[in-house]
C-alpha cells in the first residue's frame, strides 16, 4: 500500500472511506506530483503524440505494480505484439517474460486489420470484454493497461458503436475495480485524436516532447485529476536505463532540516573566514569567478577534505575529463586518485550539450541516489546556459538544491562569470539559492594579476569581510592577507614589495628608537656625574666653612680666657666679674 493512504487515514479516520484512494505507480517522481499515484479503481487517460513515452509509462505502471506492490497486471496491446513489447523494454531492465511466467503479468495482443474485416450489421465489442475478463482473471489483475484504444477507430468503421462501447468499457473497468490506464494519441487541438478524453473523468495525463536549442526534452503534465490536489506544472521526465523518472519542480515545500554541524572546506584559512569552522553540512555553496581564478581547485579541496574524512563525494564536471582533472589537481598538490580508487570519489564528466537540462538533472538525481554522497560538486553550472535559458537553469538549480538539501547533502557549485562585467550581478539569479557565496576575482595592478577571494555571503554564521589573496602553490590553496593601505589593495609582488618596504621602515624606526634611548641614558649619566661633582664641591666648601667656624670659636674662647686671666691678674672681684661676664 502507498504511503499516501496511511497518511490520509491518520488525518481523516472518519472520512477515510470517502477519500479518493490512490495506487502508487512506482514511477519515480510521479507519485510525488500526484500525492500518491493514480486513482484506485478508476481509469486514467495517458495521452501524447507518437514517441512521447505513453506505452512505457503504462508498462512501467504494471511492472512496478507487479514487482513492488504485488499487484498483477494486464496489458492489452493494440500496436505491438508481446514479443515486440518484451524486446523494447528489456533494455530498461524490465523482464516481461519472467513476470508472465510468474503470473504477475498477462499480455494480450489484439490485432485488428481493417482490410480483413467487413462489417455487416450491428455488433458490439463483447469479444474485447471477454478477452479482458479472461486476462484479468488468469492473473488476478488489479491493474489494466489498454494501449491504445483509439486504434479501433481506424480498424472499425462504425463510430457510433465504438463510442457507446467505449463508454460501456470504462464503466465495466470501474465496476471490476481495476486501476486502468488507457493511452491515446494526441490530436490537433484536442488531447486525443478521437476525443476519448470525454469518457475519462477521473484523471488525464499529458506527455509531450519539445525541442529547445536542438535539445529535446520530455514533459509530463497532470491535466486533470478529479477529487485530489496535484501538481499542475509541466514536469520534465526522462527515460533512462531504469525506466521513467519524473522530476518534481521543487520538493513541494521548504521543509528540509538544517544541520548545525560544520565541515571544513579543506582550506584552513577559508574555514577561518567562515566563522572559524567552515561551512554548514547540507548547505549550498556557490564559488563564482572569472575564468582561471581557481574555482575548480577550490571545489576540489572541498571534495578532497570530504574524502579524507571518509565521506563520499560525487563530482559532476562539465568542462574537464576525469584524467585531465586529476592531473591538474595533482599540479597543486591534490592527489585525488586514491579517493577514486577507493570509491570515495566518483567523477562524472559530460558535455552540457550531451542532452537536455532535464535529462542532466534526472541523471544527477539517479547518480546521487545510487551513490549517496555527502558532498556533491557541480562544476560549472553556468555551462547549462548552452542548452537552456537562464530562467530554466535557475529553476533546475533550485530543484537540485532542494533535492540535495532534503537529503542533507552539501552542494558546491561553481559559476563562471564573464570577465569585465559586473561580477556580482551576473550571479544574482542563482546566488539567492545559495547559503554561502565565495567570489574569486582577479586583482590587477603593477603589471600582474593576482587572485582575491571574498566571502560575499554566508548564511547563519559570522564571516569575514576581508579580501584574502588566493594563492595556489604546489601544496594546494593558501589564503594570504592582502595589503590594504592608502595605495589600495595590493597583492602578489606588489604586496611583497610593500611588505619589504614596510619591514625596512620598521627596522629604521626601531634603530631610531634605540638611538634615542641610548642618548637619554647618556644624558642621565652626564647629569648624574655633574650632580656628584657639585655635591663634592659643596662638601669641600662646607668642610672649609665648618673648619673656619671652629677656629673662630676657639679664638673667641682663647680671647675670653685671656680676658679672665688678665682680670685675675688685676685681682678683680670674681663675683662681679662673673655677673658682668654673664651679662656681657
Amino acid at each position, binding site marked *: 500500500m502507498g504511503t499516501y493512504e496511511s497518511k490520509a487515514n491518520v488525518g481523516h479516520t472518519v472520512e477515510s472511506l470517502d477519500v479518493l484512494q490512490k495506487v502508487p505507480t512506482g514511477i519515480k517522481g510521479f507519485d510525488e506530483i500526484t500525492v500518491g499515484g493514480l486513482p484506485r479503481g478508476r481509469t486514467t487517460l495517458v495521452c501524447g503524440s507518437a514517441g512521447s513515452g505513453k506505452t512505457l509509462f503504462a508498462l512501467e505502471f504494471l511492472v512496478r505494480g507487479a514487482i513492488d506492490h504485488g499487484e498483477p497486471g494486464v496489458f492489452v496491446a493494440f500496436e505491438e505484439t508481446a514479443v515486440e513489447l518484451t524486446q523494447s523494454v528489456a533494455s530498461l531492465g524490465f523482464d516481461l517474460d519472467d513476470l508472465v511466467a510468474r503470473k504477475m503479468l498477462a499480455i494480450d495482443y489484439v490485432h485488428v486489420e481493417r482490410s480483413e474485416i467487413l462489417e455487416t*450489421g450491428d*455488433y458490439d465489442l463483447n469479444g474485447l470484454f*471477454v*478477452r479482458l475478463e479472461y486476462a484479468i482473471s488468469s492473473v488476478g489483475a488489479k491493474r489494466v493497461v489498454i494501449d491504445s484504444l483509439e486504434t479501433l477507430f481506424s480498424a472499425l468503421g462504425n463510430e457510433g458503436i465504438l463510442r457507446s462501447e467505449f463508454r460501456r468499457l470504462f464503466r465495466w473497468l470501474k465496476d471490476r475495480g481495476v486501476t486502468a490506464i488507457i493511452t491515446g494519441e494526441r490530436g490537433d487541438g484536442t488531447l486525443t485524436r478521437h476525443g476519448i478524453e470525454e469518457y475519462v473523468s477521473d484523471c488525464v495525463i499529458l506527455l509531450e516532447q519539445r525541442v529547445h536549442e536542438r535539445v529535446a526534452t520530455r514533459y509530463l503534465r497532470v491535466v486533470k485529476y478529479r477529487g485530489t490536489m496535484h501538481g499542475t506544472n509541466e514536469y520534465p521526465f526522462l527515460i533512462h536505463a531504469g525506466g521513467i523518472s519524473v522530476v518534481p519542480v521543487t520538493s513541494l515545500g521548504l521543509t528540509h532540516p538544517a544541520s548545525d554541524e560544520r565541515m571544513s572546506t579543506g582550506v584552513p584559512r577559508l574555514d577561518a573566514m567562515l566563522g572559524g569552522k567552515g561551512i554548514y553540512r547540507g548547505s549550498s555553496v556557490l564559488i563564482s569567478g572569472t575564468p582561471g581564478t581557481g574555482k575548480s581547485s577550490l571545489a576540489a579541496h572541498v571534495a578532497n577534505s570530504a574524502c579524507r574524512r571518509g565521506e563520499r563525494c560525487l563530482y559532476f564536471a562539465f568542462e574537464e575529463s576525469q584524467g585531465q582533472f586529476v592531473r591538474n589537481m595533482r599540479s597543486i598538490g591534490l592527489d585525488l586518485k586514491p579517493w577514486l580508487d577507493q570509491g570515495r570519489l566518483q567523477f562524472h564528466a559530460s558535455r552540457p550539450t550531451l542532452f537536455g537540462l532535464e535529462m542532466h538533472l534526472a541523471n544527477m538525481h539517479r547518480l546521487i541516489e545510487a551513490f549517496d554522497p555527502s558532498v556533491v560538486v557541480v562544476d560549472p553550472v553556468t555551462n547549462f546556459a548552452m542548452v537552456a535559458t537562464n530562467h530554466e537553469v535557475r529553476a533546475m538549480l533550485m530543484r537540485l538544491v532542494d533535492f540535495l538539501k532534503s537529503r542533507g547533502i552539501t552542494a558546491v557549485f561553481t559559476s563562471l562569470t564573464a570577465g569585465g562585467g559586473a561580477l556580482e550581478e551576473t550571479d544574482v539569479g542563482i546566488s539567492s539559492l545559495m547559503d554561502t557565496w565565495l567570489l574569486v576575482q582577479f586583482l590587477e595592478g603593477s603589471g600582474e594579476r593576482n587572485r582575491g577571494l571574498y566571502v560575499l555571503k554566508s548564511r547563519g554564521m559570522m564571516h569575514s569581510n576581508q579580501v584574502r589573496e588566493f594563492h595556489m602553490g604546489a601544496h594546494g590553496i593558501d589564503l594570504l592577507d592582502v595589503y590594504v593601505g592608502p595605495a589600495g589593495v595590493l597583492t602578489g609582488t606588489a604586496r611583497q614589495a610593500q611588505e619589504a618596504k614596510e619591514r625596512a621602515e620598521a627596522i629604521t624606526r626601531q634603530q631610531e628608537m634605540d638611538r634615542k634611548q641610548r642618548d637619554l641614558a647618556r644624558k642621565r649619566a652626564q647629569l648624574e656625574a655633574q650632580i656628584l661633582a657639585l655635591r663634592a664641591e659643596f662638601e669641600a666648601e662646607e668642610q672649609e666653612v665648618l673648619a673656619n667656624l671652629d677656629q673662630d670659636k676657639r679664638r673667641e674662647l682663647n680671647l675670653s680666657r685671656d680676658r679672665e686671666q688678665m682680670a685675675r691678674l688685676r685681682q678683680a672681684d670674681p663675683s662681679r666679674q662673673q655677673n658682668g661676664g654673664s651679662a656681657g
Partner: protein
Amino acid sequence: MTSPLDGISRDVTSEIWELRLYVAGQTRKSLLALGNLRRLCEEHLAGKYHIEIVDLLQHPQLAEGDQILAIPTLVRRLPEPIRKIIGDLSNTERVLVGLDIRPH
C-alpha cells in the same frame, strides 16, 4: 469492382466451406446472426458448408486465436484466405461479398 472472370476462376462447387461464428452468450444479436448465416448458407452453399459456433463466454481463451474483438464475428476459415465479417449479418449483400460467394 469484380471482373467477370472471377466467377470462373473459382470452382465453388468443389470446396467445403468451413465457417466459425463467434458469439458471447445467447444474445439477440448472436441469434440473429446465426439465423442469417444458416439461411444464407442453405441458399448458396447447400451441402458444402460446416458451421462451428464458439461461445466465448464458455471458451474465452479461444478469442485470441482468431483475434476476435467484435461480437458476433464470422470467420471463413476455408477456403483460404481467412476472412472476417463482423455484425449480425443482416446485410446479406455485404456478407456474400465478404465471404466471396457469387449469388446464383
